[in-house]
């Protein structure tokens, strides 16, 4: 059997591949300069400290080289002068779908967001290009003191909490793209969960890019106070344009003593999107942070969610699924920084490469010498679906000192044509057989997703396999 033969066929992204003409009231134009940043500050009515934070971010962005010495050369194809850095119809999100302008609302309706909100979410923020068009939290959740607003409202209305943590988990100069985000950030969520409050249903953000050669730079900050628990999910899509689109978010999580944060991403950007995202959390004593990260779309994704385990017995987890189809490069991984005794981390990464797709795993696990009884478990499994596929694993595990427990396992496997034949003999088409095998490969991880997301994920894998065998 030859899986390559028909893999030219374009993958069906029908669900997200559409765009509507929208009149933008605010448009920072093309390219990036100090005046672009001033424009954004003016539109958003930023306080002075934010303006200087942005300017500093911009300086660092200019200073920092592209990380092409270790990362892919494809980064050089991002033309920063061609990107539009801010587009919106206004910076105040609506609280009801009725108030959302029709041209934007129909996008989210088509993506099924209001329906999902009614069914199983505690709150939703729907971002359209640079700003949230809609943001609302169920009344019962709001009554518990939970704050769920856009980043702009967070910094204006809740400065005492916001400023304490903003830019602290990920300093603006962390990398070139976190610096860029710091300069031009707009949108994203600010969440605060008061001590002991356990938010029963997930909060969700949906990020939608509608415009061409646009850059989306949302900024999310989630703080779970002592003993609090919250699950946050994000989804994202964009239409497929000929020109490159940039998505460069910064997400900071803070889990105070005994808190639990779960952050779930199902990324299905169109194949012209550069998705360069910095995500990191700090977990204090007995706190847990878990990133569940699923990358299916984009042209290039570079994303290594991290957890800094700052308090005793803190736990960090990254569960990641990457699917690299034709022409895609999923460069993903995890960073686990152990900074207290008895902290434990777990990384499980599964990647699937097909056609010319390429999956890279980069892991960093750091346990310094003075700590006691830390644990790390790393498993990375790669599945290759034809001979052109490529997978690389760069696990960097530095563990100093004694009495730690570290486990690392890696595997590379291929879908074997005898398996496909066996399934075909039972009546499954080649594409269905491939889907089943691929779903089987990621099954144990998909089970950790909330039901609605795991169904969506299965659907996306099916589409991808149909595309790959024709």
């Amino acid at each position: 059997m030859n899986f390559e033969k028909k893999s030219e066929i374009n993958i069906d992204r029908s669900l997200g591949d559409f765009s509507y003409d929208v009149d933008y009231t605010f448009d920072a134009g093309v390219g990036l300069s100090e005046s672009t940043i001033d424009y954004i500050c003016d539109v958003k009515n930023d306080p002075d400290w934010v303006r200087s934070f942005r300017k500093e971010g911009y300086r660092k962005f200019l200073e920092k080289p592209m990380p092409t010495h270790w990362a892919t050369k494809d980064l050089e194809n991002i033309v920063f002068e061609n990107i539009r850095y801010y587009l919106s119809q206004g910076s105040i999100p609506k609280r009801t779908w009725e108030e959302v302008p029709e041209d934007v609302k129909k996008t989210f309706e088509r993506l099924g967001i209001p329906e999902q909100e009614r069914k199983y979410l505690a709150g939703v923020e729907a971002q359209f290009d640079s700003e949230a068009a809609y943001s609302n939290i169920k009344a019962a959740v709001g009554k518990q003191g939970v704050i769920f607003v856009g980043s702009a409202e967070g910094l204006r209305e809740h400065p005492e909490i916001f400023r304490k943590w903003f830019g602290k988990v990920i300093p603006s100069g962390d990398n070139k793209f976190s610096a860029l985000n710091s300069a031009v950030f707009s949108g994203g969520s600010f969440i605060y969960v008061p001590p002991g409050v356990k938010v029963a249903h997930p909060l969700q953000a949906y990020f939608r890019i509608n415009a061409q050669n646009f850059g989306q730079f949302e900024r999310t900050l989630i703080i779970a106070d002592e003993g609090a628990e919250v699950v946050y999910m994000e989804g994202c899509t964009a239409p497929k344009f000929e020109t490159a689109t940039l998505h460069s978010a910064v997400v900071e999580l803070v889990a105070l003593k005994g808190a639990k944060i779960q952050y779930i991403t199902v990324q299905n950007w169109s194949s012209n999107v550069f998705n360069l995202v910095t995500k990191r959390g700090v977990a204090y004593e007995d706190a847990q942070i878990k990133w569940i990260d699923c990358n299916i779309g984009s042209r290039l994704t570079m994303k290594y969610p991290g957890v800094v385990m700052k308090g005793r017995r803190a736990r960090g987890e990254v569960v990641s699924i990457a699917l690299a189809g034709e022409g895609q490069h999923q460069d993903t991984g995890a960073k686990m920084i152990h900074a207290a005794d008895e902290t434990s981390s777990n990384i499980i990464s599964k990647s699937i490469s097909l056609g010319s797709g390429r999956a890279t795993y980069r892991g960093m696990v750091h346990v310094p010498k003075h700590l006691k009884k830390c644990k790390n478990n790393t498993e990375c499994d790669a599945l290759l679906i034809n001979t052109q596929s490529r997978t690389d694993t760069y696990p960097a595990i530095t563990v100093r000192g004694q009495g730690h427990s570290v486990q690392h396992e890696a595997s590379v496997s291929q879908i074997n044509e005898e398996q496909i034949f066996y399934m075909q003999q039972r009546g499954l088409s080649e594409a269905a057989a491939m889907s089943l095998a691929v779903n089987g490969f990621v099954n144990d991880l998909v089970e950790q997703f909330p039901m609605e997301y795991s169904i969506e994920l299965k659907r996306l894998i099916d589409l991808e396999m149909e595309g790959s065998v024709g």
Partner: protein
Amino acid sequence: MNTLSIRHLYASIGEKPILEDLNLDIPQGEVHAIMGKNGSGKSTLAKVIAGHPDYTVTSGDVLLHGESILGMDPQVRARLGFFLAFQYPMEIPGVTIANFIRAALQARLPEGEELEATDYYAELYAKMDTLGIPRSFTARSVNVGFSGGEKKRCEILQMMMLKPRCALLDETDSGLDIDALKVVASGVNALRSSEIGMLVITHYQRLLDYIVPDRVHVMAAGKIVLSGEKDLALKLEAKGYDWVSA
């Protein structure tokens, strides 16, 4: 009507011919057995009928209920009612037996029609009970970590669920203890009817005490060299294969 009809079949793998002028008819409602030395081409015949892409049919024909199936993809042949119990069933990590059989049944339904889950599970459990497969197996990945005997029972389970019109069992008895052999045989016998034709490949006449064949064929060097009644199997067991070629 013949369930399966094989006419002057020649098949090779790469440049190497394996089946040479093989002829065989299985009338509807009959069970035939094929015996033959290791490497005589029995499994090759099974895979050629199933449509394995590695084998090239150079001439001849295979008819399923009178219809030539040689140009068809394996899944099309399967949906027409052909089932192969593999000599070496494949492992499919992460795919549970329940989901696998369900997907196979679903694939036979017209577009837009959904398999009824409650009925499906009721039937699955009932058949597992008959075959002595613990119900906990529904949640296990297909063949992963199964013992040899468990794999064979699982093949029979799939056969019973998919209800083929033509079934070919390739050494389903190998590696089975006597109890398992009886269970498997009862599964096969339960399926036996005037509607279906079956071909059973085996090395042991013992199986044929439980699945009594209408005809026994001996295969050597890629063709059927001798055919007879059930007692042919006894003779073979007593005298060995050299007696046939002599």
